[in-house]
């Protein structure tokens, strides 16, 4: 009976904490997901040889609910999506005269490259405006979020950066897990990218002349010999920052997971065997002493 009472208390407390956790620090992912998921290879806007191309985009129009912004969630079409926006009801600040909200996400070539690292994957232009094209904003406390997925090279750590006022600015980013994804709270929209520290190879940028694009070397980039996988710079086929597209692209490396799983199992089996032996060991009596007769 005591167990049941404690159990009910734990159940109630746990459910309250689940609600509180999701309210205070909402996650775009469910709390439990232990099934099977496939992360398709990252799709590059300008793919190199062996890389997947044709990244997706997304667009839509949301109607207001009771004069407020509705629950907003839009994602590009890859699995997992390479760019997503999340905003709960009432968190987008509406300019006067707003009657509907227009959303779009599309991969683009950047005009300028970041100076504190190199872009991994695509740059995404995320636009959230009202019907007249006036951009919407949000308060940082409302946790409106952008989730970007990066290619395999971002697995060791990266930051979401936003291009604003002529420069790339890093945002406080957290690991969003599946598919090398990162999440950042935003107060405005625009161009976003996953940026990895250190120099990278040539990255295509948007050219001011229509129909042409150029290669730009990120600031601080090492010489080409320091990046053995970087293709030679050549026109008119620019190449993105070279990344691998091997079997680990799009997720935690499988061999690492397998090793971790094996270690867990061996540790579990070892601990279980030790526990069983400890439980099965009979209580030892002290040996009886025979008195010596002289």
């Amino acid at each position, binding site marked *: 009976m005591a167990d049941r009472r404690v159990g009910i208390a734990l159940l109630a407390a746990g459910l309250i904490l689940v609600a509180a956790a999701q309210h205070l620090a909402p996650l775009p992912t469910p709390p439990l*997901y232990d099934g099977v998921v496939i992360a398709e290879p990252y799709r590059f806007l300008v793919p190199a040889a062996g890389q997947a191309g044709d990244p997706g985009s997304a667009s839509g129009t949301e109607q207001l609910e009771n004069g407020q912004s509705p629950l907003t969630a839009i994602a590009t079409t890859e699995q997992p999506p390479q760019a997503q926006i999340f905003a709960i009801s009432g968190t987008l600040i509406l300019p006067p005269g707003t009657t509907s909200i227009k959303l779009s996400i599309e991969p683009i070539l950047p005009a300028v490259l970041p100076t504190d690292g190199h872009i991994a994957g695509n740059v995404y232009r995320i636009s959230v405006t009202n019907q007249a094209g006036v951009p919407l904003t949000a308060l940082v406390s409302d946790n409106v979020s952008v989730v970007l997925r990066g290619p395999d090279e971002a697995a060791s750590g990266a930051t979401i950066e936003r291009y604003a006022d002529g420069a790339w600015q890093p945002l406080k980013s957290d690991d969003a*897990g599946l598919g090398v994804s990162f999440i950042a709270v935003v107060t405005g929209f625009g161009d976003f990218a996953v940026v990895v520290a250190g120099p990278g190879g040539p990255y295509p940028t948007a050219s001011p002349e229509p129909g042409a694009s150029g290669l730009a070397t990120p600031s601080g980039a090492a010489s080409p010999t320091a990046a053995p996988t970087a293709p030679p710079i050549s026109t008119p086929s620019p190449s993105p920052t070279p990344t691998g597209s091997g079997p680990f692209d799009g997720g935690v490396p499988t061999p690492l997971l397998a090793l971790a799983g094996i270690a867990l199992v061996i540790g579990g089996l070892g601990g279980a065997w030790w526990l069983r032996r400890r439980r099965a060991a009979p209580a030892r009596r002290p040996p009886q002493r025979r008195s010596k007769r002289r």
Partner: protein
Amino acid sequence: MPGTTAPAALAAGTLFGLALLAVALVTGWRPARLRAMSVALGLGAGLGLVVLPGLAHGLPAPGLGVHPQPFLLWAGVTVLVGTAEEVVLRGALFDATRDLAGLPVAVTVTSVLFALLHVPLYGWHVVPLDLAVGLVLAGLRLIDRGVAAPAIAHVVADLATWWS
């Protein structure tokens, strides 16, 4: 279990689930008869775990990846993995830790391990939420006096993501 092909992902999930069950069996865990109360409790709590986060904040879950077809095969592996985790965590490990160090330690250890198990797939920011979920499942374990209710709740929450 991520992977870039359906067979690889399904195989990895199956192996992981079977390995966990093997660990539980070695410790002496054996399945008990399934009771209607356990099913009702597990279903109710599972639905709560699905609905409550959405009510609290209203965020939908994004696409988590390609769902390997067919559904029944994916669901089977998902049931196996979710159940196996509960058998090990809220079954064998809970009992062993409670015997050694008492109930509070058992609840804490199993809940922390449960949260950490999800970090490789979701990142560290899921720890607070999954700790809370761990408490829910530990509560079910105590109410039900077995792993059936927490296993059902866990599986219901996992299966619900197919439609997210």
